[in-house]
């Protein structure tokens, strides 16, 4: 995030995150949404790796659109509905069916890319309940995983698709 800012550049604003209004106070105005989520709001599910939109590990939903939180100006997102990976779980420590499938199919190794992939796969099923293999690959093409080789991830996505069939 570069060196610290002058006091005059600090601002306060509110963000809507996972259905709650969260206050951000005395923040440098150029902070990314990823930085604010992790360092100011204590939401560590979105991971910080490349800070340039390459790895997808900070994927969030902004007004229902999949985006990288590292490339969103936090102070510019005041009118947006932000959903992080924390907001996709049923709550009470339970896992969503997508998260469950990742665990069961061995799609989680070091786990660093997993939250971003969970958000991307959630977004894929929102728009396309019956994706082809090519559509799955395209949907997760912005999420890098250096452990699995993607085979187990594709298997997990397919398992969700099969389980959700009526």
């Amino acid at each position: 995030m570069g060196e610290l800012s002058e006091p005059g550049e600090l601002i306060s604003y509110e963000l809507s995150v996972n259905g709650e209004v969260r206050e951000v106070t005395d923040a440098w105005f150029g902070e990314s949404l990823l930085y604010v989520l992790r360092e100011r709001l204590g939401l560590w599910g979105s991971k910080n790796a490349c800070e340039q939109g390459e790895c997808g590990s900070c994927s969030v939903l902004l007004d229902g659109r999949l985006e990288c939180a590292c490339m969103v100006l936090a102070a510019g997102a005041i009118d947006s509905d932000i959903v992080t990976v924390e907001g996709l779980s049923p709550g009470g420590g339970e896992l969503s069916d997508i998260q469950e499938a990742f665990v069961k199919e061995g799609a989680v190794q070091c786990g660093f890319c997993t939250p971003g992939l969970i958000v991307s796969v959630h977004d894929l099923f929102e728009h396309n309940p019956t994706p082809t293999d090519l559509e799955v690959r395209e949907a997760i093409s912005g999420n890098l995983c250096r452990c699995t080789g993607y085979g187990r991830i594709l298997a997990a996505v397919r398992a969700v698709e099969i389980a959700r069939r009526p």
Partner: protein
Amino acid sequence: MPVLVPTSLDGVFDALASLPGAEMIAGGTDFMVEVNYARRRPRAIVSLRGVRELKGWRREGGDVVLGAGLSYAELMRPELSVLLPGLSQAARTVGSPQIRNAGTLGGNLGTASPAGDTLPVLSALDAKVVIGRSGGRRELSVAQLIVGPKRSCLQEGEVIVEIRLPAGLGSQEFLKVGTRNAMVIAVANAALVVDWVGRSVRCALGSVGPVILRASAAEEFAATAIDWDERRLRGGERDLEQFSALVREAARPIDDHRSTARYRCHAAGVCARRALERVLAKRAGDRAEEVPWES
């Protein structure tokens, strides 16, 4: 307040007037990377994300007018890909789903990178870029707007508002070379438009010069080499090779961390040649639709 988030174009002009030296952010896919890496230290920021006039598109006579705030993902939607197939193809090659949801057409123009994927298509379609300012507008071509690598002639207080393009003009193709299909900045890219009614060929090249280049000699050659009634090249393979050679000659690339100048010339020639082959094959009706980024 050093960050303003106006919802109307007039609001943007007011914001820019009230924050001298403010920088504009659209999708943020270029801007925030520079901020994150401390390569850009804005004094103030005006966010264009919520500006209603920059969203959406409309038909106007034979033209399509695109709001500068349209995302790459929106350019890929069926209603637009029918009218602007080349632009849709180019949009689909940009980054990843995340980046295509965030990045905008106006942002691609404003960043003015020689590798901007939509820019060769806009150039080949002779796009008119409408620039707004408080109390006025002006229209520029892509070549007038982008004056050097990452340099546009946009003045303080000016905003890229919309882009005017001909609807459904002839046959269009966009091809791009990079190290993988997704998440890649072009090593070379090319847009081709063959106007069957006007009997002209337009070919624009990206990533092979300081700005987008039109391969004028190649365009003129192709227009004479095509048998416009039969919709094929009179000289077949020989004409394709000549077209490709003229494209390579038009390229003015540099060596950098992404590729060598020599390879970029070669890749531009291959992209343009394949684009012409595809256009002609499709018109002959014997080729199935391609996945846009397959090459």
